[in-house]
C-alpha cells in the first residue's frame, strides 16, 4: 500500500508539466489560436530553462526563462496568424521543427552536466493527513503551483467576466467585437500567456522530473503532441484536461509496471504505447460526430439512441467555434 502511494505521488509529480502545458494550450485555443508548436517548444524551453538555471545557479531564473521562451513563441504565433493572417497550422508546424532543432543545436554546451534542481518541500500539517498527505502534499512547489493553476484557470474561464470575454473571443469574435472588446488584443494576451505556460513545462522537466539536458536523449520529443491531444480530450476545460493529463501519465506508469510481468513484450512497444492510446482516445471522443455513426444511430430504437447521444455528448466537447480562424472586422 505504501509503495503504491509512493508510486501514485510519483505519477502526480510526473503529470505536472503535462497538466500545466495542457492548461496553457487550453487558454490559447479558447481565445481562438492553436499553438501547434508545443512539441518543439517544450524541448526548447527545457533547454533554455536548464541553461539559464545552470548559468545563474538559480532554479527560479530557469523556470522564468522557460516561461519567457514560451511567451515569445506565443507572440510570434499571434503575430503571424493574427496580424499577418498566415495559417496557424503551417506556422505552428514549422516552429515545432525549428524550436526542436534550435534546442539541439544551441544546447550542445549544456549536454550531460549536473545542474540545479527544484527541491521538494512537504507542506506542514497538510502532509500529515492520511493518504492524501503523502499523495498530494509531500511534493515540490511546482506541483503545488499546478494545483492552484488548475482551480484558478477553471474559475477564471467559467466564473469570471474576463473568462466570459475569453470564451466569446474564441466562439463568436464578431459579437464580442460589437460589444467593444478588442478581439485581437485578447488573442495576443492569451496566446502569449498560454504559450508561456507550455514553455514552463520545459524546465519543469529539465530542472525536476527529467533533470538535466541530454540533447536528443532527453526524451521530451513527443510530449507536446500528447499535450495537444489531451487538450482536445479535455474539451478545452482545465479540470477535464488536467484529469486527462493525470490519466495519461498513470497509464504510462501502468505500462512500465506491467513490463516486468510481460517480459516478452519488447520495451520499444511499451514506450510508444501512449500514441495508439492517443489515437484511440481521439477516436472515442470524435467518432460520435462522423457521418456514418450519425446515420447508423438514426436507425436505432429511440431509447438506445438517446443513450448513445448522451454518451457522445459526454465524450465530445465541440472546439471553440473560431479556433484557427483569423478575425476580420467586416
Amino acid at each position, binding site marked *: 500500500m505504501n509503495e503504491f502511494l509512493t508510486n501514485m505521488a510519483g505519477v502526480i509529480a510526473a503529470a505536472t508539466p503535462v497538466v500545466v502545458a495542457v492548461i496553457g494550450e487550453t487558454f490559447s485555443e479558447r481565445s481562438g489560436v492553436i499553438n501547434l508548436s508545443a512539441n518543439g517548444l517544450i524541448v526548447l524551453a527545457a533547454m533554455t530553462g536548464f541553461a539559464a538555471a545552470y548559468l545563474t545557479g538559480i532554479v527560479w531564473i530557469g523556470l522564468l526563462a522557460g516561461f519567457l521562451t514560451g511567451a515569445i513563441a506565443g507572440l510570434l504565433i499571434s503575430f503571424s496568424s493574427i496580424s499577418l493572417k498566415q495559417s496557424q497550422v503551417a506556422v505552428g508546424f514549422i516552429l515545432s521543427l525549428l524550436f526542436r532543432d534550435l534546442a539541439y*543545436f544551441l544546447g550542445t554546451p549544456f549536454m550531460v552536466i549536473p545542474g540545479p534542481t527544484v527541491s521538494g518541500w512537504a507542506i506542514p500539517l497538510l502532509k500529515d493527513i492520511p493518504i492524501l498527505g503523502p499523495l498530494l502534499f509531500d511534493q515540490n512547489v511546482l506541483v503545488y503551483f499546478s494545483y492552484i493553476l488548475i482551480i484558478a484557470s477553471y474559475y477564471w474561464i467559467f466564473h469570471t467576466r474576463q473568462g466570459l470575454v475569453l470564451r466569446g473571443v474564441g466562439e463568436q469574435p464578431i459579437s464580442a467585437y460589437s460589444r467593444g472588446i478588442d478581439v485581437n488584443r485578447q488573442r495576443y494576451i492569451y496566446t502569449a500567456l498560454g504559450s508561456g505556460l507550455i514553455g514552463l513545462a520545459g524546465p519543469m522537466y529539465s530542472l525536476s522530473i527529467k533533470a538535466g539536458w541530454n540533447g536528443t536523449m532527453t526524451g521530451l520529443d513527443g510530449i507536446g503532441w500528447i499535450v495537444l491531444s489531451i487538450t482536445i480530450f479535455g474539451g478545452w476545460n482545465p479540470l477535464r484536461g488536467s484529469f486527462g493529463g493525470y490519466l495519461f501519465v498513470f497509464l504510462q506508469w501502468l505500462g512500465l509496471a506491467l513490463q516486468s510481468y510481460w517480459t516478452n513484450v519488447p520495451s520499444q512497444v511499451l514506450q*510508444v504505447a501512449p500514441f495508439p492510446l492517443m*489515437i484511440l482516445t481521439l477516436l472515442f471522443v470524435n467518432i460520435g460526430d462522423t457521418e456514418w455513426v450519425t446515420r447508423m444511430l438514426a436507425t436505432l430504437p429511440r431509447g438506445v439512441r438517446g443513450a448513445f447521444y448522451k454518451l457522445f455528448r459526454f465524450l465530445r466537447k465541440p472546439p471553440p467555434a473560431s479556433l484557427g480562424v483569423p478575425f476580420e472586422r467586416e
Partner: protein
Amino acid sequence: MSKNRAFINFLFRISGVIAALLFTALVLLIAKANPWEAFSNIFLGAVSTPIKIADSFVAWVPLILATCGLVITFTTGLWNIGIEGQISLGAIMTTWALRLLQDSGLPPVVIILAGFLAGIAGGIVWALLAGMLKFYGGVSEIFAGLGLNFIATALTLWLIFGPWKRAGVASMSGTEPFDMSIWLPTLTGYRLSIWSLILAVVSVLIVYFILKHTVVGLRLKAVGKNYKAAIQMGISPSKYMLLSFVLCGVFAGLTGAVQVLGVYHRLIPSISSGYGFLGLLVAMLVDYQIVWAVPMALLFAALNIGGIQLPIMMKIDSTLSGVMQSSLVLFFMLMDGVRKKILKKEEEQSNE
C-alpha cells in the same frame, strides 16, 4: 504594373531568404561559431567534389518523392503529417519482400520490382489508415498521422531488435545488409543510382500531369479549394480526400523503397531520415507547386549533405541545417504575410 508587382513579389521572397540567413547567423553567433565559416563549410560540403554533388542528388530523390505525395494531399487541403510513418512502412514492406525473395533464385530485377511494389503497398496501407481515422473516426489527420508515425517507428525498432535482428547481436545499425545483387545499381564510384533519379523525375512528371491535365486532378483541387462547392458539383469530398491519401501513400511508399533499395540496403531505425517532414517544409515553401519543388528540394538536400561537414570541420551540431531549412520557410511565410498586408492596404487606398 503587373511586371512591377512580380518584381515586388520577388523582392519579398529575397528578403525572406536574407532574414533567414541573418537569423541563422545570429544562432551561430550565440553558439560562438563563425557564421561565414559555417555557411562556406555547408556550401563546400555540398558542391566541392563530384561525389558530394552526387550525394546531394542521393538525398534529393527521397525528398522530392515525399514532396510529390505531399503536393497531392495539400491539393485537397490535408495536412499529411503522417508521411514519416508512411515512408517507414514502405521501407518495412520493401525489406520484408526482399528478405522473402532474396534466396529464391529469381532474377534481381524481379526481386527489386517486387520490393518497390511491396513498398508502395506499405505506404498506401499506412496512408489509408490515417484517412480512415479521419473520415470514419473523426480524428484530425494531423493527430492520426503523428500517432501513426510513432507507431511506425516502434514497429521498425521492434523488427530490428526482434524478428529481423542481425545474426549475432541486434543493434541500432539495423538489419543484415542485403546482397549487392539486389541493390539499385549505382554509377561506378558514386552512391547515386540512375534508376532512382529516373524514378524521381517520372514521379514529378506524373504528379504534374495528374494535377494539371486530368479530371481527377481538377476534382482534387475542387475539394481543396471549395469544399461546399465540390459537394454541389456532385463530388464526394471524403472519397477524393481518401484518394489523395492513397496517392500520397504511393509516393511515400516509393520513398521508403528507395531508402532501402538504393541508399541503406537494409532497414535502419531512422529509415525515413526525416524526409517526410522536410518534404512538408519544401511543399509549403513552393506554395504547393510541384515544378518549383524540384529546385527547392535540391537546395534542401544540399543543405542536408553540406551540414554533415559541420561536426567534422567546426565541431558544431549538424542540426544547423534543420535550423536553416525551417527558418527559411518561416521567414518566407512571414514575408508573404507582410506582402499581402501591404498590397491590401494599397488596394484599399486606390479604391478610395
